[in-house]
């Protein structure tokens, strides 16, 4: 029993699965972004460039790993490892292969979103520990952004918890057997969740912390070699995690028409398809806007999204 459990932690739906699907999601995201832009995207490595993210990862692992002079060495070296660990831990809560995630207990929804915040704080430390000015400006911006998108993100999840009457992911999934949450009063929460997720993932139009043309790569500037590889993997896992969380909370997660005896196959398939829908909206969102300025991001989120999410929360509270 414990051996089987260990095996599932390391293979499916554990770490190996998460790493591979994170790379797959990066590839899909790049392909979609390229398609929207009239390009081909990754093309050379593997069929249709399918292996490109893995090739990038391996290449970065072999590159020289520099800790710049003047960096806070301990934090600088720990951040990539911790960030990846946090991202993996988050993903273990996802109900990929059944109604339950690998780790599941009452209140795991709260833990899952807390860890997500922790990830942003990791990125802040990554920038702060680097000696580069671009990193410091990037870290500053990432913290400012965190203060604005965190509230709508939490509130949209809170309205899910209220309408399902459960604080565990299993509870949320099982409550959706009667009907997915996106159908009903929670449709606005879904949109709010996706825009906040876009900000959390630091993608256009909210990619100010790593705005390429302004501050090089923001908090990521000084990282190279293995550390950069781990941080990029972290970003990929985060992308997988947030699109999957959107699918779990609003689109019914692994639920779908089940043929008895094939649950082991159908649950993961439904889950992946649904999270790909969320990924598609995230990619579309990314390709139709210009990058906002940091003050405009804060303005937009505080002026429109936060009041909207408060109203939405109250609305759900009254309706349910």
């Amino acid at each position: 029993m414990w051996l089987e459990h260990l095996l599932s932690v390391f293979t499916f739906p554990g770490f190996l699965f998460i790493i591979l699907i994170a790379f797959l999601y990066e590839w899909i995201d790049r392909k979609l972004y390229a398609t929207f832009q009239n390009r081909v995207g990754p093309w050379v490595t593997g069929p249709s460039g399918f292996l490109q993210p893995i090739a990038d990862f391996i290449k970065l692992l072999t590159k020289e790993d520099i800790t710049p002079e003047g960096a806070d060495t301990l934090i600088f070296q720990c951040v990539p490892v911790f960030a990846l660990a946090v991202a993996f831990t988050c993903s273990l809560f996802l109900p990929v292969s059944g109604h339950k995630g690998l780790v599941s207990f009452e209140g795991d929804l709260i833990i899952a979103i807390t860890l997500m915040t922790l990830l942003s704080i990791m990125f802040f430390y990554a920038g702060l520990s680097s000696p580069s000015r671009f990193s410091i400006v990037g870290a500053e911006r990432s913290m400012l952004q965190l203060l604005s998108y965190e509230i709508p993100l939490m509130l949209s999840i809170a309205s899910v918890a209220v309408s399902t009457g459960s604080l565990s992911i299993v509870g949320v999934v099982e409550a959706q057997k009667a009907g997915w949450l996106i159908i009903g009063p929670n449709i606005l929460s879904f949109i709010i969740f996706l825009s906040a997720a876009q900000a959390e993932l630091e993608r256009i139009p909210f990619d100010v912390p790593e705005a390429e043309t302004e501050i090089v790569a923001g908090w990521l500037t000084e990282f190279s070699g293995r550390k950069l590889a781990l941080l990029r993997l972290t970003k990929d896992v985060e992308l997988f995690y947030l699109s999957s969380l959107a699918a779990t909370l609003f689109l019914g997660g692994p639920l779908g028409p089940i043929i008895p005896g094939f649950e082991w196959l159908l649950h993961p398939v439904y889950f992946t398809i649904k999270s790909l829908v969320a990924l598609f909206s995230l990619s579309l969102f990314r390709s139709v806007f210009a990058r906002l300025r940091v003050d405009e991001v804060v303005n937009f989120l505080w002026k429109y999204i936060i009041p909207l999410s408060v109203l939405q929360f109250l609305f759900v509270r009254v309706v349910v």
Partner: protein
Amino acid sequence: MSVSSSYERFFDIPIGPQHPALKEPLFLKLIVEGEHVVAADVDVSYTHRGIERAMQERNYVQNIYLAERICGICNVAHTLCYCQNVEGLYDVEIPSRALYIRVLVEELARIHSHLLWLGVAAHEIGFDTLFMYVWRDREIVMDLIEEVTGNRVTSAINTIGGVRRDVKPETCDKCLKAMDYIEERTKYYKRVCKTDPTIAARCVGVGILKPDEAVRLCAVGPTLRASNVKYDVRADDPYAVHDEVPFNVIVYDTNDSFGRILVRIDEIFESINMVRYCIKHMPSGPVRARLRLNPPVGEHLSRVEAPRGELVHYVKSNGSEKPERYKVRTPTFENLSALCEMLTSKGNYVVNIADVPVVFASIDPCLSCTSRVAILDSERGKIWIGSLEELKRLKR
């Protein structure tokens, strides 16, 4: 400004000479306080190529090719300016068909340059989708330039006494067809730029340059015209056949980066109409007048409206096969002092770090064309052009 606490309130952010935002070697030292730029300092001349000097070492025919390589994108404007200069020394009449072809290619190059710029500006504000779309359509103009001149980028069409090759009738048809397509696409981009909220958020009210400041700082080209100053060499001092080809000088009174986008987009429409006019009204006849190798003694100054603004070339001939002195003044150089003005916060006008790339891009900089050596001695208050020996001495 006083520092109120023991913390460092201001710190400087170096942008360039190598930076993802700048494809060109320029050093911008920004003194920032949080996100706000308090002051900006510009340092140029990282790529001095000694072209003026090299031109004095070569004969007039070789110099056509050297002038072409001052700038890759405005190569047509540079050769046009150079050839007009040398022709000005001879006092000859250039065949009218050649002048029409010159304007045709010049305007095609302007469309290509403005589309390229629109893509770069979109990239600077993080709108990569627009960037990719615009550059895809720019390829059509590049193909046309290749069709007309035989070369995709450095077109090598202008030569002393006319143009190097004639335009075929079927090429003209192709041109007209492509112009319809480009016009339709540019209308679409104009609509995108005018309606997209994120473009407006990033460009409106950013990089303000008031009309009086623009004139005082000698801004040129679209930068000047976006500050509501109606000045265009093609209209004010017509060269080639610009006095025959009708067009409107586009001005906007927004004084900001957004106005510069709109000026350039509208200029694409004007250029499209000029290309059409040139094709329809092109007279027949020879395309080149043969001239003696050595021009007579004299000097000449010629001005051309390059895509980036007014371009000035000056030549002095002593009757030999090489120019005695050649001087180039590129539009970017004139716009740099205006750039410093745009990047300085004062009063209610605040520049953010995020605004710097788009403000910088809004002057359509081309710095490698700009580098000239002038030695400034601040103690004696003297500026002079240094000789090679002096430079070598300074370097040590």
